[in-house]
């Protein structure tokens, strides 16, 4: 295609956006909001899945021992548990080790924990892994009946809740996005219809001069895509920088949360949002062009 034709297309598209500025802004806004909701719920889902996966890989039973338990008793208990067929691993964590671990997970906020060394409130712990996650609950019940055991904890319920939540967020986010996306498509269709109306004389001339339907359509599709692109760029900027600053804050105050910080995972999501914006724009203009070109 000739450069002049292309520049003609772009000039027309931008002029139209400016001419219908109010409804253009409304379309851009709705595209932005719908993609914003989609983008944030996708991020939420990604994070919930990430946290769940981390928890699942570390589903283990923590058996907290009573304070008075002697090293011999601990050794006996450890051997007894290790002999069980469902158990794959038993690790003893002394109360000192537990404190060190906690300090590590707090990173540069570990000062909070200073002063705990003298009167360490953490118990001695046995960490037990099973062959399957299904064996965790019954085993944990059995451990609770042992004399030296104070408390038994395991994270399985949390994993299930997280996965359920992520499913729900995904469904709700998708439903909202689809509804708003449809609204965005129709707003863009209305915008394009206005600009078709504003240029109906020119279109009539183009048609009797022998312009193909695609030549007539193209500037309008471009206009729709410009609207979609503008909306999606707003959404991407808000989601991207909003998320970066949010995880920055969370990592400061909740350093042990396993968040998705990998930009290589976030960037395709942003690219997807922009692609969706373009598709919404093109669909909106195609809808408004279909009826009109037959006339």
């Amino acid at each position, binding site marked *: 295609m*000739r450069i002049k034709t292309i520049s003609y297309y772009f000039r027309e598209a931008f002029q139209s956006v400016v001419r219908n500025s109010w409804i253009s802004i409304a379309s851009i806004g709705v595209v932005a909001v719908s993609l914003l909701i989609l983008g944030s719920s996708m991020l939420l889902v990604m994070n919930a899945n990430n946290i769940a996966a981390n928890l699942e890989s570390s589903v283990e039973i923590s058996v907290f021992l009573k304070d008075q338990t002697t090293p011999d008793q601990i050794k006996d208990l450890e051997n007894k548990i290790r002999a069980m067929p469902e158990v794959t691993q038993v690790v003893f964590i002394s109360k000192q080790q537990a404190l060190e671990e906690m300090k590590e997970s707090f990173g540069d906020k570990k000062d909070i924990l200073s002063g705990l060394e003298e009167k360490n409130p953490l118990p001695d712990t046995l960490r037990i892994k099973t062959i399957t996650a299904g064996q965790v609950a019954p085993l944990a019940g059995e451990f609770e009946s042992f004399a030296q055991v104070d408390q038994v904890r395991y994270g399985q319920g949390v994993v299930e809740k997280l996965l359920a939540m992520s499913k729900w967020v995904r469904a709700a986010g998708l439903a909202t996005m689809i509804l708003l996306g449809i609204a965005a498509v129709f707003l863009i269709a209305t915008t394009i219809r206005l600009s078709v109306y504003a240029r109906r004389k*020119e279109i009539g001339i183009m048609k009797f*001069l022998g312009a193909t339907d695609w030549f007539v359509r193209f500037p309008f599709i471009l206009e729709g895509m410009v609207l979609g692109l503008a909306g999606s760029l707003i959404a991407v900027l808000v989601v991207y920088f909003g998320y970066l600053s949010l995880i920055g804050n969370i990592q400061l105050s909740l350093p042990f949360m396993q968040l998705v910080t990998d930009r290589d995972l976030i960037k395709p999501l942003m690219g997807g949002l922009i692609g969706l914006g373009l598709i919404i724009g093109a669909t909106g203009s195609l809808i408004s062009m279909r009826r009109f070109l037959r006339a």
Partner: protein
Amino acid sequence: MIQLQNVTKVYPGGNKALSDVTLRINKGEFVFLVGPSGAGKSTLTKLLYREELPSRGQIIFNGKNVVRMRQKDIPYLRRKIGMVFQDFRLLSQKTVAENVAFALEVTGASNREIKKTVPAVLSMVGLAEKAGVFPGHLSGGEQQRVCVARAIVNNPILIIADEPTGNLDPETSWELMKLFKEINRRGTTIIMATHAWDIVNAMKKRVVELTGGKIVRDEEEGAYRYED
């Protein structure tokens, strides 16, 4: 070159604009379509460039069946036909040269071709000096000559002019007719719907008279008779 076979056109709503029209026009002819208002002249021309479809009958143009033509082939049909209307249909925000160039642009012609062709066509219609002027600053006769330039810039084999002098004074009309005569002399077929009886009488070309959607007269070197 053009063949209408038993063509009937009934508009939605039941308005019968043409009834059983059979007409043959050869390459290079100059044909006046005359008849009272509402006789079906405009409808007949619209059928030729597929603005309207006939309700019955067949139309052959340049060896192709216009009625059965697919939607995507219509633009290429129209590029073979130059159109001139009573109300000009120029784009007011484009200059004279840009309006003429637009006809080439929509066909995807190259920049070089546009630069070469547009000035030549403008000088043929006597508007070389007005290339950069906007249509709003031109007289009616000049605007209609821009339309003629736009109609011929694609080298069409047929020119359809629907009352091209309807908005012009007699003297300007004659200037324009000279231009059409010259275009026809170079081999382009011309079909002109008109009410200008003096022009028809003086040109001594073929006259097809329509009344109530029927051809009531078809004469070589005819005159605009029903004024008598």
